[in-house]
């Protein structure tokens, strides 16, 4: 069973971000980088902001990530989450991948215990149809 109910909006990959979701379907979190100069960028887009190359490559994110900020959603703005609130939306970053952050969920922890700066490890949420969504939970001491 996935973290959110089945009615939850799903990723709808488009031409510019399909590489990101193809990697997710293989349970790999990959950020886009310029194929020419290597500059990282997120969300995916078709041209390098630094050198304007349209060549791209994908860089796999290491674990653990670190919580950059978070909020605790109590008011359900969509019917799919009415039975799920409160839940934590976090923004995480990866110390070795400067310039990219990911919006995700911080799970498996009391929401009052989440802290900015805490290390978190990825887990893959099976949302059906062959798609997996990256979410994070507190890192075990051996991960950090």
């Amino acid at each position, binding site marked *: 069973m996935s973290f959110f109910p089945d009615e939850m909006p799903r990723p709808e990959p488009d031409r510019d971000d399909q590489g990101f979701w193809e990697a997710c379907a293989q349970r790999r979190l990959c950020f886009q980088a310029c194929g020419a100069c290597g500059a990282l960028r997120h969300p995916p887009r078709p041209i390098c902001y630094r050198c304007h190359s349209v060549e791209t490559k994908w860089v796999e994110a290491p674990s653990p990530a670190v919580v950059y900020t978070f909020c605790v959603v109590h*008011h359900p703005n969509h019917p799919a*989450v009415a039975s799920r609130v409160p839940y934590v939306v976090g923004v995480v970053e990866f110390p070795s991948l400067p310039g990219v952050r990911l919006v995700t969920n911080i799970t498996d922890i009391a929401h009052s215990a989440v802290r900015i700066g805490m290390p978190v490890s990825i887990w893959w949420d099976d949302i059906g149809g062959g798609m997996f969504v990256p979410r994070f939970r507190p890192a075990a001491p051996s991960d950090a």
Partner: protein
Amino acid sequence: MSVARQEPCIVGVGQSEFTRWGGIQDRSQFQITAEAICAALRDAGLSASDVDGFASFSNDANEGPLMQVALGVPVIRWSSMVWGGGGGGSIAALAQACAAVEAGHANVVVVYRGLCQGQGRRFGRFSTGRTQGNFVNPFGLFAPPQMLALLVRRFMHLYPITEEHLSEVVLNARANANRNPRAVMYARTLSREQYFQARWIAEPLRLYDCCLETDGACAVVVTTRERANDLSAQAVDILAVAHGSGPDWGTGPLGSHNMPDDDYASTNSKRFTRDLFARAGVSPREIDVAQIYDHFSGLTLMALEDYGFCGRGESGDFISRGRIRWPDGELPLNTSGGQLSEAYVHGMNLLIEGVRQLRGESTSQVPNARTCLVTGGLGVSPTSGTILGRRQ
């Protein structure tokens, strides 16, 4: 014709009634917008045949060319829409009107916004139209209260900003609304206890930290100083106006939150605020009253820092001890009740209140107010701001 005579000013303001969302059902959003424009023209002493430009923002559905037909405006010479969602473009639309009249493209430009959330979509709910929706929707990050709560959380982590400081922004707005019969919350007081007892929307934002959802329309008439001199209406000078955005903010708070680390917990305004004050020829200290966009209390605090009223992280201390309170504070803030307690018309009601202050017509009038800062939406892309001045 001298350049100075082309300087822009505001000669009329108009509005519909403001109600809770869904409160206006007897007329369409387009109709109340047209009525607000007519009210602004009457206020200015102008007629529809004098208008030759329209400017709006936030993908306003009440399109200028359709408004031209509806109001019988013979010729349009200016028609513009500011890119970007939310209220960030409110003062940017004013900037476009100023650019139009200063450059001579048009002579009388109406800036307007009509927003009936009971007839269209509610901005506080999930929408399929979000920028970069794939990177927020599957994680339950659906709407601005949650998206901007992420900025407020980091702001409170980095600096000595507390829930008490958030509450002061909220309670100040309500106290001002309680003096303003136009305000949706005119008859409803709010105590500190009620603020803290209210439910969470998205921690660290409680119910009253979030703006109202309302129905209403606002319009402002911009023309040249030369034209204004021929009108009986009391004109208000636009001393300076600016809009802009920093790197990566276009996919920022409403998207994947990849803004630069050094201004993540900010309003995305600091890159133009210094120029804004320099062009107006005043310093933050010389601002008599301010209308700062208050969709969420924490962003209003950040704006006090980004506009230079205080240093980084000092806004909580700045607003303590009554500094933003009418009538005795040094910087009375959001004197109509703002969007937390008057109405949420994507900031256009803040612009109208700025004009009222400089005309001496506010229900929380700052004695002898000569300068007023008005900002557009904060933490989005673009953001915008203006400094209004009272004609001498």
